[in-house]
């Protein structure tokens, strides 16, 4: 560490690579925290975890006992064990006792991305509720046609306040907090939708993963979905060698006109002269698999409805877009993890080592961009895989029962996991104990699940 600090002082390494080096270093040393403890008030399995996006300070959890709770992960409520173990009790929790609370399990609990004044919960009782954090009162209710599996809000959105919800129903609904009504329904899936994720590069792009095994991309300003991922479509032979290219080009040019307007790379502020807008757009669509000529006459949005391509055999149970907005990771009930190139929609064919995943429940994945790792709940263990090679780099043994959700805080380089054993565990970079007086305290805090 001292060496890196010295190199940063003299400008030998750039400050941003300094921080990413240190982060990667710390992330590769993640282990069950020996000094930080989250005290879970839940009496059911933990289904959802999220740290707020503004301050990185408040953890929100949702559990099967219809309760949700908020913890301050920066400031402990008290200390135990000679002041060495920081206890984080929940700041408040809402459960069935709350007059307007949920009746059945909360499957999803998320923060309003702009500030911590609101949070949103989705439940198996068919309701999505919006809560005022300060008064812990429900300020808005959305009645859904079936069990709510997942609710998400766009971290980028500046012009809409939409909650996208995946439910038992085949339609994905967008609930507008601004008006308190449904903004749209997105039709295309043939079964319930367990996984929903907003794009991290465009506030209009939404990705959904259904129990029908399909992953669909929507531009919420337009009808229909604009891309359906196909597990058989890979990037092999994507860039033809010089000699072969003239033939290949013709194909791609004609294709690029087919599905036209939608893309993830939205041009942003118009004053940006060299914004990437059109470039990305056209090259994105340029590689969408060719459709038969008969279909091309249809409305591009309608056309995609007929696309029955699948991303997984079985249900799609988890989705996560990388922070840079260029790749998507999906998990399916076929116990596969797949990495997709978002620009082209190709299956990258990265071979993730065999895992066993929960099949009946949505799982929440987490990504560490610095180290290019994805954290996947694999039954009772959380495993970290290298995104590019698919190799498992770390395994986190700690939960007694299946893990449902994980959240990675890049700011603190900490991983939070919640499972059916009703525990929320904190995994943090191991810290050598430097105190002169405290030898022997920590042994009993070690990985106690093995």
């Amino acid at each position: 560490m001292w060496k890196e600090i010295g190199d940063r002082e003299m400008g030998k390494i750039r400050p941003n690579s300094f921080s990413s080096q240190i982060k990667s270093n710390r992330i590769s040393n993640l282990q069950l925290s020996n000094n930080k403890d989250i005290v879970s008030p839940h009496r059911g399995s933990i289904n959802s975890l999220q740290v707020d996006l503004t301050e990185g300070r408040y953890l929100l959890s949702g559990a099967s006992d219809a309760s949700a709770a908020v913890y301050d992960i920066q400031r402990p409520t008290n200390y135990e064990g000679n002041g060495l173990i920081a206890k984080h009790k929940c700041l408040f929790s809402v459960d069935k006792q709350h007059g307007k609370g949920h009746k059945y399990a909360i499957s999803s609990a998320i923060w309003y991305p702009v500030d911590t004044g609101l949070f949103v919960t989705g439940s198996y009782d068919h309701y999505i509720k919006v809560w005022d954090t300060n008064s812990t009162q429900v300020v808005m209710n959305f009645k859904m046609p079936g069990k709510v599996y997942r609710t998400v809000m766009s971290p980028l959105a500046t012009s809409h306040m939409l909650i996208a919800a995946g439910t038992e129903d085949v339609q994905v609904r967008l609930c507008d907090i601004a008006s308190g009504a449904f903004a749209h329904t997105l039709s295309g899936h043939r079964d319930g939708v367990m996984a929903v994720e907003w794009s991290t590069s465009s506030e209009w792009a939404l990705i959904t993963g259904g129990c029908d095994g399909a992953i669909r991309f929507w531009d919420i300003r337009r009808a229909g979905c604009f891309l359906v991922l196909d597990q058989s479509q890979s990037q092999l032979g994507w860039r033809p060698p010089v000699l072969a290219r003239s033939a290949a080009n013709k194909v791609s040019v004609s294709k690029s006109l087919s599905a036209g307007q939608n893309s993830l790379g939205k041009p942003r502020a118009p004053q940006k002269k060299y914004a990437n807008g059109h470039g990305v757009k056209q090259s994105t669509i340029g590689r969408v698999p060719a459709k038969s000529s008969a279909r091309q006459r249809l409305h591009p949005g309608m056309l995609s409805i007929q696309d029955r391509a699948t991303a997984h055999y079985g249900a799609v149970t988890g989705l996560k877009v990388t922070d840079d907005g260029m790749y998507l990771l999906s998990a399916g009930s076929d116990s596969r993890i797949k990495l997709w190139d978002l620009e082209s929609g190709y299956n990258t064919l990265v071979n993730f080592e065999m895992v066993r995943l929960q099949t009946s429940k949505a799982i929440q994945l987490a990504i560490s961009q610095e180290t290019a790792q994805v954290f996947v709940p694999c039954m009772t263990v959380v495993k970290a895989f290298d995104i590019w090679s698919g190799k498992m780099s770390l395994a986190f043994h700690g939960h007694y029962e299946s893990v449902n959700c994980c959240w990675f805080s890049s700011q603190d380089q900490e991983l939070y996991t919640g499972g059916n054993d009703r525990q929320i565990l904190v995994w943090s970079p191991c810290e050598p104990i430097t105190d002169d007086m405290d030898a022997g305290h920590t042994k009993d805090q070690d990985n106690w699940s093995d």
Partner: protein
Amino acid sequence: MSVWNYVVTAHKPTNVTHSCVGNFTSPQELNLIVAKCTRIEISLLTQQGLQPMLDVPIYGRIATLELFRPHGETQDFLFISTERYKLCVLQWDAETSELITRAMGDVSDRIGRPTDNGQIGIIDPDCRLIGLHLYDGLFKVIPFDNRGQLKEAFNIRLEELQVLDIKFLYGCLKPTIVVLYQDNKDARHVKTYEVALKEKDFVEGPWSQNNLDNGADLLIPVPPPLCGVLIIGEETIVYCSANAFKAIPIKPSITKAYGRVDADGSRYLLGDHAGLLHLLVITHEKEKVTGLKIELLGETSIASTISYLDNAFVFIGSSYGDSQLIKLNLQPDAKGSFVEVLDTYVNLGPIVDFCVVDLERQGQGQVVTCSGAYKDGSLRIVRNGIGINEQASVELQGIKGMWSLRSSTDDPFDTFLVVSFISETRILAMNLEDVLEETEIDGFNSQVQTLFCHDVVYNQLVQVTSSSVRLVSSISRELWDEWSAPSGYSINVATANATQILLATGGGHLVYLEFGDGKLAEVKHAQLEYEISCLDINPIGENPNSSQLAAIGMWTDISVRIFSLPHLNLITKEQLGGEIIPRSISYLLCALGDGHLLNFQLNLSSGELTDRKKVSLGTQPITLRTFSSKNSTHVFAASDRPTVIYSSNKKLLYSNVNLKEVSHMCPFNSAAFPDSLAIAKEGELTIGTIDDIQKLHIRTIPLGEHARRICHQEQSRTFAICSLKTQSSADESEMHLIRLMDDQTFDFISTYPLDTFEYGCSILSCSFSDDTNVYYCVGTAYVLPEENEPTKGRILVFVVEDGKLQLIAEKETKGAVYSLNAFNGKLLAAINQKIQLYKWMLREDGTRELQSECGHHGHILALYVQTRGDFIVVGDLMKSISLLIYKHEEGAIEERARDYNANWMSAVEILDDDIYLGAENNFNLFTVRKNSEGTTDEERGRLEVVGEYHLGEFVNRFRHGSLVMRSPDSDYIFLEKLQSSLRKVIKGVGGLSHEQWRSFNNEKRTAEAKNFLDGDLIESFLDLSRGKMEEISKAVNVSVEELSKRVEELTRLH
């Protein structure tokens, strides 16, 4: 105290990051363009060397700098991109000598993660497109249209994840890039891609090469006719093209920079990490490459950029040492080096630590920095103002004037020093023993006061007294001719150059004489309406011996007039206004009796005066005198605050001279005292040399090793530094030392070597309660190769005895001691995650030891610590600032408040009881305030962010202190208004916005700067034209004069 902060640059950046050579200012002129972090400097190559043309700030950290020439243009354009994703194309406007913006834009993307290895910006050799690699996995293309205009940009997906370098290949039909990258298994390869502009995609290129040297880091594209690319590794250099592959092994080295020598690309200069300069030659038969050869040329500063200028002249830009202009000789010198250093350009960076000291005890701070790195490490003593190094002095009271004279016209040195008093004139001369003694010049009248003296052509001297002008031979020293003032009139003022003399007598008579060989001829006489107060005919323009213009200051109407010579026709008249009398004029400067100085632009051909500016130099009458130093002419303004006036970058600059009061001054360049000045001050005549003319004076103490930490101990008059010495042998072993230096001579007087793997991390001079001694405390860390984070360190306590470091006590710690502070008579150390307080205990046997008292956990790494009273401010590796308090009764340290933002800190300082300043990893500054009046625990426990600002420089250390004696109070609200008006009037180079540049920016968010003022922008008010000043004056509703005065006061801050 106010929450406002005024940030101003005392010394411009000196670290050369980029450089390029081309025909930028005109098709015939060859320019060197140098980027120094946030500035670019354009200079012209002349016979005499590099001549500066323009030095401008860029509102951004320069990430890439390239010259290119679009089709149909006769000179080059400059392409710049900044680290905050702005880019601009600049063109030289020969008429105004300014930069015009051809194009500008923002190339940031929402998707993508910024590259770790820095940005790459390259231009196709055939000018078809600009290529940018800014984010991992993306290659941005900005195509040119047929007229050389930029078209809309697009991104191409780059599948190689870890890109090390990208270059365009020469001689390809379609624009083709070559990519050097590292794969998942850490092997390195190159690959080529053609850019298909129409399809906006890549097509596999003509060739690729797998499994290169593991240290391959740099690509050099080879121009036609050879084409292809050179791949520079740590152990091999490879030439690669579609049909050839040649490799040679080299001595292990990391090549940092290259410069192409020939246009055909057969020779290259390579600069490595140890500062060795190599010549790489591609041997070829016609267009077929036959091999590579490499030859060591010699040693330079560690190069960050190399630009081959012309005729074996090379510019070496350095980030770690001084930049250099070198010449490559055909024959090696005695040491076998082909490198001859012609000029060096001071570089203070990287400053890893510094201390503010008052060595002369004058109340004026000096900064001693740990500068440079590796072999170019040095200490630099930076102080404000220009020093006079006294060589000799004589006690002489009542000096009224001084002039130096030569013994013959061709003599390069001055011999005589004429010193005039109220009723006599004395002549001093250098005798054969180089001692100044009184002498006689027979032809001079020494019984009266001398008004003026000068050397005259044909080996003559002239003396002007109130009654006559005496022309004297400088060889025989006899009077040759004399012109007497008409009876009843006496000469009041006179001035002369080598061929002309102008004098004024009472009654407004102006007489113009010319010197002949042994003769004085009255050429012209004029009668003016008022008495004349001062005159000047200093030659300006082509002829160094005579002037076409005369400047004349008048009493009564207080005006300055420009007359033509020899006809004495009035050209311009300028009213100076006020009740002050012009006393002394040197071409465009006009000094007033109340210490003010007016300056004008003087048009040489027409004699017109424009651009009037007024500055205040002191309160006493000023006398002006020109002198030259280092081939340029400066003006010395003698008054109660002596100042040197000089011009740089097309504007006049004023530098304080570090002397109290000077009544007269004249240059005195004698053989014994070359380039000296004779200075009359407070009853004393001093002869001394003057420092280089610049505002801040920098003295360099080369160490040959890398100083990392410094501190000063006043009691022992020593500095102690932690330094590391790199063994010159190839195995790169390092030695870490604690050095003691004398604070006057800067000699090493004692050295304490640290253990193997032990690094010095912090150093402090302090004393403890119940002990009168002053100690040096040093914190160390054992940095073991297998450990991520040090788990062991030491605190060493030294006392200086007989000029030696004596180890008094040592205490082992469980981690690196990142910081040490004196705290309530105890020692506060930051050790890894912990803050630890140590008591200084007396043992029974009379020896002393450090004993730990209490500590505080809960940091990721406590890197930077400052204390004030019982408060401790900690800057964490990644968790911003926290405030701790020491509770005496409980003997415990507790957290009081913290800032919950995730700032990666690089320095902290306490501004006052409530406000703390921090610098973070993304070149930002911010201030936080303690909120003791908060109503809830939550509020009290949170440090409120009150100020944010993008500095654009990486801050390693804050220290309290000042380079000047006093600092004025400022009205920040007014200054903010002024700043926002200036933003509208001053356009950033390349159309970059000042507001955006100064906005706080990190990975998570961007926020407008608040409670910080950019002093550099505010002070640039003084450089504006009158028209623009008036525009601003209107906007802020304050007169131009008042504005100038207030801004000038601010410039005195530094």
